[in-house]
Each structure stands twice: as structure tokens, then as C-alpha cells.
């Protein structure tokens, strides 16, 4: 489904991956997470090729690479409280941890992601979307990972919550030196959070580079199309973009918005 995609995520940096759905962004993320098979090429983490692991990822890799998904509610087990979910992760990676120590870690994790200790005993359904996403982030950082794949991690959130979660991710990066592979379809979000960006189209990466370079001087038509389709809350800018894109959309597909004169 995806081929010829090459990029590097440096230590404590963020690589953004943009493109339309079906372009293969999540497939790349899943390959890194061992949730999708890699047919050719390699994912090298800290000098180790992960395809050499076989079917089961070793525990150290699970500890090093974590994920935050798009749908915060669905990514938590509906039948477990926040505490139970976090405890399972902690005891899996630190089996000898005593109960009290686990609880202390859980309080600390919740605090880091901006939740209160009493949230530990809530079920996912009792939390808002933003709070669920914070729990998912807490679960990801619980293992002290080096890389987190954020697969549309802020896409389902309201603007204000989205901003809160993006700030949280930035803070965790500063504090813990985590790298992110930030998959998103929203170009402005990616621009805000990433150092480097890759543009995917139909399974390949058509353009990549430092964020400002790609956004200011896109070298590919497709990147330009994406940029002109991105909506910003500025009516003046949007008027220009609308003009730019209606011309371009027609040119690209021909089926964009042809109308018959009468119903």
C-alpha cells in the first residue's frame, strides 16, 4: 500500500506527516508500531532494524515506541478505570513495582498530563474527549518512551482542547526529550508542532523537508493543492484560497463541481 517512503525522526524532534486519507500516513505509523507488516525497506530504531524482530516485538521496543490514536474514547478500554489501564502498563514493564509505588506513579502521570488524582477512578465514558486524550497520553508516556506515534491525535478535538493537547505534547517533548511522528491531515496543526514535514500522496512521500521550507516554498503541485485547501480563520485569506483552489480543483479532476443548469 505504501512504498518508497523514507524519512528520519531525530531525537527530541517532531516529524509531521500530512496527506489525504488513504495516502498511507497511518500505514507508515502502524508499520513503525508493528501493527502493519513491512514488505520492503526497513524501519531502523536506534540502529536496530525492527523487521528483524519477527512477529513479536521485543518488550524493550514496546517500551521505547508508543502511540496516541485519534479517537480518544475508543483507544481506552471502556471497562477499565483510568487507574486500571495505567496500572496494567506500569506492571507490565516494571513487574516488581509495589502497589503503592504504582499508585504514586499514576498520580504523577496524571499530574504531568494535567489531570487531577480523582480522574484515576473514572471510566473513559465519564471523561470528556480532551480528558480521554490526556489519559491516552499518560498511558503512552508511562513507559518513558523515546518516540510516540501521534496518529491524528488532536484531530477529533475542539479547537481549544486541541490547543491544550498540542501544548501538552510540546511540554512533554521539552521535559522528557520525546520524539514524535505526528500524523495529521490538518496542515496548520502539523505546521505548528513539527520541525520537519513529509507530504504523502497515494502511498508515497512526494515532498519533505523543514516545515517552513515546505510550507513557504512547496516544490510539488500536490503540496500546493493541499495548502490551498487548508482553511484558516481569516476571511480575507480564505477568499484568495477559494479563488486559487476553485481554479485548481477544476483543472485537477474535472468533476469537482460541475452543475447542471436545472434540477
Amino acid at each position, binding site marked *: 500500500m505504501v512504498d518508497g517512503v523514507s524519512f528520519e525522526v531525530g531525537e527530541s524532534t517532531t516529524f509531521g506527516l500530512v496527506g*489525504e*486519507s*488513504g495516502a498511507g*500516513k*497511518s*500505514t507508515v505509523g502502524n508499520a513503525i508500531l508493528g*501493527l502493519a507488516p513491512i514488505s520492503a525497506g526497513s524501519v531502523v530504531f536506534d540502529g536496530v532494524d525492527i523487521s528483524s524482530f519477527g512477529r513479536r516485538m521485543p518488550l524493550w521496543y*514496546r*517500551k521505547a515506541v508508543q*502511540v496516541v*490514536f485519534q*479517537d*480518544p*474514547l*475508543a*483507544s*481506552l*478500554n471502556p*471497562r477499565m478505570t483510568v487507574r486500571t489501564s495505567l496500572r*496494567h502498563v506500569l506492571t*507490565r514493564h516494571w513487574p516488581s513495582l509495589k502497589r503503592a509505588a504504582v499508585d504514586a506513579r499514576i498520580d504523577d502521570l496524571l499530574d504531568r498530563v494535567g489531570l487531577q488524582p480523582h480522574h484515576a477512578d473514572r471510566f473513559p*465514558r*465519564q471523561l*470528556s*474527549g*480532551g480528558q480521554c486524550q490526556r489519559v491516552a497520553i499518560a498511558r503512552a508516556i508511562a513507559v518513558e518512551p523515546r518516540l510516540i506515534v501521534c496518529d*491524528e491525535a488532536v484531530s*477529533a478535538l*475542539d*479547537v*481549544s*482542547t486541541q*490547543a491544550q493537547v498540542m*501544548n501538552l505534547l*510540546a511540554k512533554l517533548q521539552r521535559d522528557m526529550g520525546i520524539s514524535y511522528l505526528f*500524523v495529521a*491531515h490538518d*496542515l*496548520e496543526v502539523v*505546521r505548528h508542532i513539527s520541525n520537519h514535514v513529509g507530504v504523502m500522496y497515494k502511498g508515497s512521500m512526494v515532498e519533505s523537508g523543514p516545515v517552513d521550507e515546505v*510550507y513557504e516554498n512547496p516544490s510539488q503541485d500536490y503540496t500546493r*493543492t493541499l*495548502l*490551498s*485547501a*487548508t*482553511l*484558516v*480563520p*481569516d476571511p480575507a*485569506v*480564505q477568499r484568495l*484560497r*477559494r479563488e486559487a*483552489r476553485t481554479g485548481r480543483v477544476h483543472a485537477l479532476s474535472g468533476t*469537482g*463541481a*460541475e*452543475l447542471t443548469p436545472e*434540477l
Partner: protein
Amino acid sequence: MSNPVRPTTQAVDISATRASAAPRRTVHRILSSRKAVISGAIILGLIVIAIAAPLIAPYDPLAPDPSNALSGPTAAHWLGTDDIGRDTLSRLIYGIRTSLIASFEAVIIAVVLGVGLGLLIGYASGLADRIGMRVADAFQALPPILLALVLASVIGTGLVNAMVGVGIIFAVSFFRITRGEVLVQRELLYVKAARVGGFRLRAILFREILPNIAPTLVVQGAIALGMALLVEAMLGFLGVGQETTQVSWGTMLNAAQQYQLLQPVMTIAPGLAITAVVLLFNLLGDGINESIGNDRNRSGRAKAWFVRSGAPSTSRPPAVVETTAASDPATLAVSNLSVVTGGEGGTELVSAVSFEVRRGETVALVGESGCGKSMTAKALMGLLPPGVAVSEGSVRVGGVELVGADSRTLRDVRGNRIGMIFQDSISSLSPVHTIGRQLSDAVRAHKRVSRKEARRSAAELLTLVGVPNAEARLSDYPHQFSGGMAQRVGIAAALAGDPDVLIADEPTTALDVTIQARVLDLLMELRDRLGLAVVLITHDLGVVADSADRVAVMYAGQVVEYGEVGSVFARPQHPYTQALLDASPGVGSRVEEMATIPGSVPPPWEWSSGCRFADRCAFASRACSTAVPLVNGVRCVRADELQLRGLRREGASSDSTT
């Protein structure tokens, strides 16, 4: 394979749980089903009777009393006696024991085997799954009785052995069900997260997945118990596997055969007992199923939605925003619309919302989720969920009042004057009929035309919304359209009644940027071409900036700012509008820290009588605790003194479009 954006609203709707009350867990839900509780209680009673049989039964069930053979009901023998004078009531009571033990034996074997294998094979999938399903198919073809007979002859007779056979057969259906559920769960994000967490297989299967599929299995278990009981009775009747020391309802029936005419009670008693207990188990399963099903449906779309019939309440005089254009059919005028849940004195979900949309105009409703945007839209359509109603205000379409209108008027308006599209409009179409059929039905409901003409109109509709190859695609089913095309079909369906007003609730939220832009372009072209009045609901200020003429910013059920998009964004007067602008990525330079709004939208029952935004507002002062009216399109007591910055232009570089 990247996921489309999910809905922001419904998925995280915490209103159902009210503050911090414990969530309604499965057990609670089942306990609230009368069917399940009553049948469950009776079954428990039967178990007690089975255990206490020696204490309860008036006679030894095996002791013959030839002098009293074939007696009818008497004071000594309430249900009479059998051919050798054994007390029927006592035999019935002891029979419960045999029946229950046998059924539980079979079902426990079935659950352990079936669920265990189902979990493993469903999760492993691939080759194991294919083999598993073949074997299951083969087993499924055998009737349980037959296998029980065969098994009994192989591993020896006796009820225990026979029921092992029944258990194995039943295991097959548990296997199928479990496997099916696991295939679904396996793809859910929480299971993926568990894999990334490095959990062991055992933990993923039993700790993560099993509790989530347990409710379905419990239902199946209850039904299987009834079926096993029936099989046991049949075996007894056939005289297989029973020892003489066991009393079974089936054997009782068998014995009764010859004396049916002489002593009908002998047949009726065990017959009724078998029927009743099988029914009880089915009822239990049914009750549990319904109580679980209710919960699942809750997230789906409610079926009956009506604006409360009868006159609107007159406690507040209906707003008098008569407009010059009020009689233009394409004018939607909403004034002082309030929506409540929970009847009189209930919670307000939408408070005194007013706005107006004319032909060829787009008015956006924008705000975070839970601010009442969708509820407003549903009120406009007369499609409120059960228990929710318009409490006051007025909604007029081309001068026709909808609040308090009779259901015929409403239906008429809904079909012909107002159309609505949703985030996933296509899911409001029936999955079992073709698009062509559904579109032409919609056209015919609106216009008296022949089938053929209706079909041609349907094709025109599809062409109108930019579905290529429209004629051919009429014979496709809804699921054959994806993403942007599906949304176009949804729009076509909304347009089938040739409406004047189009309400679009988050129409592009689930779409990719490029497709979002195309769908918005389509909507705006249709608006211009057909002269529609469009209400565009969104949480994305970018969508507003792109497509709307005017905007109503909603917060906690109220409009807090209303005006032309350009001026509202350039010079917002309400702190909430400013906060939304600040929190939107892509405005302003790339500062390290994004501006956020502390906290979140309060739930309706916590809305204060003063400014509802006060808790999160950077400018809140004492004056803000009194009720704030909407003055000149702004609902803020400090609107005049605050000099809000508006859009930070310098960062919103327009050169990226070139």
C-alpha cells in the same frame, strides 16, 4: 489507511452520565430490565428448589406406592401419581435438579471450549481461523441429539456423557459468536494500544477483550441453557442416558405416554414444566439482550423527534423580530428559540437563540462541542430526540410558524422546505435499497411524477452534486460511496424535496482537507444556483471564514456574538470569540505555546444565571455574575470597554496559496 476524523460531539458526550455519577454498567442496565429481573429471580428460585429438593418434596420421588397408582390430584398428592404410584409433584421437584445440572454442565462445557477457542482463533485469524471455521461448519450440520446419542454410545451411556456431547455441539455456536466479536474488537483502538503496550496474549484476550464481549456471551448463555434443558428432556423421553435413580422430566413424559387418557396430569405437569423453564431462560436472554441493546442504540439516532405539539408557552412573549423578508420562502427566521430536556422546569439545552438566514446566504453556527449547535439544528427540523422539546420561541420558514405546528405541517415543511445534511449524511439512507430507488422515492414524495421521471430527477440530483457517472451509480448502494462522494449523495438526498433552506451540521468534519474544500465549494455553488438559505454548523473557524456570510458564535446554549464574519473575526467583541480565534492553529505566527481556553464547556445543568463564560473568561469581573442580554449582537457586559485584538493578521500569511 488513515482514519477519517471522527465526530467531535457525540463520541465524547458525557451528559448521559451526569456529573460524576458512576456510569451505568452492564450489571445495572440488566437490573433495570424488568423482563431480565423477573425471569432471573424465578430461575434463582428454581435453583433453590433444586438444591432443597429433599426438604421440599413431600415424598420420595422413587418410592412406588402401587395402591395409589395413577391417582388424579388429591389432597395427599397435589398433582397425582404415576403408573406405579410415585408422587408427581415430588418427581417434578427432583426433576428440576436433573434438568438444571444437565443444562449447566452442557453450557459450561460449551462456554469454556467455545469462548476459549473463539478468543484464540479469532485473535490469531489467518490459517487457524480458516480451519476453525471449516470444523465449526461441519459440526454445526449435526443435530445435537444425534451427537449426544453417538457420544453416549462411544464413551458410555449416562446423562453426564450425553450432555458432554450436547456441550460440544453448543460450543460451536459460542465459538462462532466469540470469534465474530473478537474480529471486531481486535481492530478497535484500545486493543491496538494494548498491543503497543507490549501486553501478553493472555492479558489481551482475557483482560482486555473478554469483558467487552461478555454481555453478548451472557445472553447466548441464557438461551443455550434453555436449549440444553430441552435437549435433556428429549434424551429422557427417548430413554437415553438416564439412570433409574434419576428423575427427569423427559422420562416422566415418556412414562406418561401410555396413560395419557387415563391420567392426563401425568403428561401435562412435566410438559408444562419443560415449556415454562425453557421460556424463562429465553426471556432472561431476551431481557439481557434488550438492556444491552438499549445502551448501544443510545448512541445511534433517535427515531421519533417532534417539536412539542400544542401552543408554545407564553411565559415570555414570542420575539417580535418581524422582518421585511419574512414571507420570502427561503427565509429562515429563528427567534428566542429555547430547547429543554426533562419537561417543565427541566434543563435548558438551548437558550433564546435568534438568527435569520435569507435566500442565497450562509449563516454559520460555531462553537465548541456541547454548546447546543446540533440541538438548535434539530429543533429547526422538528427532529428533537425524545424527552427534548422546544419550550419557547419561534422558527419560521417563509412565514410559516413551526413551533407548535401540527404534525402534518411539520412533515410538509421537513420534506419540502427544509433539507438537512449531517456529518455522515449517507448513513441516514437505508443500506438495503439502491441510491436510485431512495432518491426517486424522495422525489415522488414531493412531486407527483411518474417513476421514470422520478428516476431521471434522481440522476439529475446526483449530477447536480457532482457525482460522476450519475446514471450508472443510481443502482449502487449507499456503502459503495466513500468519503466525499458519500457526502455528495447525502446532499443530493437532502435536495430531493427541493428545499428552500438547507441545514448542514458539521458537513465536512469527517472529510479530508481537499475533499472538505470541494464539498464546501459544492454547497456554496448550490446555494447560489438554487437560492438556498444555508445554516452551516461547524466547530472550525476556518470553515466559517471560508463559506459563511454571517456567524453566530454559540457558547453554552446561547448566541454570544452575532454578525458579519469579516467584522466579527477582525474585531470580535466577545472574549469567547477572541479565545476561539486565538486557539485556532494557523492564525498568528508560530508561537511556541498556543493560546488555549482554560477548562471546558460546562454541562447544561451547571449553566449559571450570570455570564456562562465567566469561569473561563480572562476578563470576568463582578458585573459578569448578573444575567447578560444580547446587545447589538454581543452578550458581554464589558463588550464596550474591552479592546479585543481580533485576528492576528501578521502570521496568517496568504502567500502560501501561490
